[in-house]
């Protein structure tokens, strides 16, 4: 399979990452993360490219990738909303807020908006329990959520 090449900048980053470890294979998660962040998915072609870097089979890359929830075989939205539904957030009313967010985006949980802007996922505890209810949008944590705050956050993203 062809069609995936790393950019020069990514090649440099890969060299830096691989040098952290005595065995290349340890760079598996970092390389999958690099691809996922850049492409918003890990395609079969990317798996082949990673396997070549790490001297393992593409099937092996896929077996590792499929274990972790942050890698996606199908492209996710520009903004990935991880909505925490675990205990501290549940106690603080996250279920209604998640429903509200899904309704606002016009999708059900797990889906991506047709314009590819938002993906909404139900997420397990994100380690910000004292700020419950909370969500993570790409790399940013938003706590003390209310319908108003969700509106403000989503409206602020272009």
């Amino acid at each position, binding site marked *: 399979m062809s069609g995936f090449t790393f950019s020069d900048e990514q090649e440099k980053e890969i060299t830096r990452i691989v040098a952290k470890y005595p065995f290349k294979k340890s760079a598996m998660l970092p390389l999958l993360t690099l691809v996922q962040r850049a492409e918003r998915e890990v395609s079969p072609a990317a798996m082949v490219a990673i396997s070549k870097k790490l001297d393992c089979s593409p099937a092996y890359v896929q077996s590792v990738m499929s274990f972790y929830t942050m890698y996606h075989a199908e492209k996710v939205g520009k903004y990935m909303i991880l909505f925490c539904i675990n205990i501290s957030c549940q*106690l603080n009313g996250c279920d209604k807020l998640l429903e509200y967010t899904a309704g606002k985006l016009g999708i059900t949980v797990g889906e991506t908006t047709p314009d590819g802007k938002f993906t909404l996922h139900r997420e397990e505890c994100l380690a910000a329990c004292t700020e419950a209810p909370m969500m993570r949008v790409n790399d940013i944590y938003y706590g003390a959520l209310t319908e108003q705050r969700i509106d403000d956050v989503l409206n602020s993203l272009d």
Partner: protein
Amino acid sequence: MTQILFKNINTADLHTMKVYEAQGGYRSLKKAFAMQPEEIVAAVKTSGLRGRGGAGFPTGLKWSFLAKDVFPRYLCCNADESEPGTCKDRELLLKNPHLLIEGMILCAYACRIETGYIYLRGEFHDLSVIMEQAIADAYAKGYLGENIFGGGFNFDLHTHLGAGAYICGEESALLNSLEGERGEPRMKPPFPAVEGLYAQPTIVNNVETLCVVPYIVNEGAEKYASIGTKKSAGTKLVSVSGHVKKPANYEVVLGTPVREIIYDLAGGIRDDNKLKAFIPGGSSVPMLPADQVDVLYDYESLAAAGTMLGSGAMIVIDDSVNIVETTLRLISFYMRESCGKCTPCREGTRWLYQIVEQIMQNAGQLEHIEKMEDICDTMATNTFCPLADACVSPVVSSIKYFRADYEKYFTNVSTSLA
């Protein structure tokens, strides 16, 4: 109350080298390097420090278990923080990254380790950026790298991001994940101290545990040991969340009554509702009913009360809640996060989920409660790692203390219903 880890946590720009050093940061290194590594291990033993990640294993003892004369050795900081209710490591990493680096250098020196990794859960990308900056600054200052302070000691430190899997917080799964594999737990023994990362002797310690070490070196093991109770030395960060007025991370001296944590520190129950239950150590430990709120917050008192201190996450539940709903949410978590390696865990979590869901749809039978207990019996202590036991905790304790909440769903339902 004595503050060790949070003493200066809200100092502006504490995450920068300049402010951290101005606060006395990194001064433990000179003192440590003048000591023999074994003396530091002995001090950590004397201090009584126990692992803050969940199991509470004595830290100095763990360090002394490293396979003799086998090198290289590795140090892995467990910053996977995924136990529901727990968010203390996040605050330390966010506001005081250099404290962790200092603690890791001390551990590495004491254990003759030259390479360390900080395994951060994948969702902590923001923290990995902060951590990498702090590491770069520590290299620039000569605290990390080769021949530190000209004493011949080398230590390299790197971050490593996970990618979304609770089970990677379990130390052997963490090591597999760090090796680029699926994050499934390993058979133990051998324990990591004997055969860990790349099959070499490895220390795995929680963020908070490592952050305590500079204090022990600076102030002395006896001083640390004098804080708290005999078996539970020192302070503990407690993440108080749920139905309290002031949810936050609090540093408490071990042995403090739970009542004080909930009502004084965290301001009491929101809307002045009544306390119904509390889970004292993260979702994986048994819950206790309100009438046990006078229990002391330390390892031995919580064990005597039939629960555990765990990761130090206090989840507070008021009387507006039916405990069955909370329990189902926790079962769902363990069902989703089971790595699937062991049948009792993979299938047991699913069966428990299905049964409780049925009960909540008023379609259960009273015998279902017995069946749940039966499944829990098979799951407990029969698996590779304690995740299955963790799922059993909320189920068994909810049945024990809040059977009436289950029974509410059986009113108007004949027990002979199919």
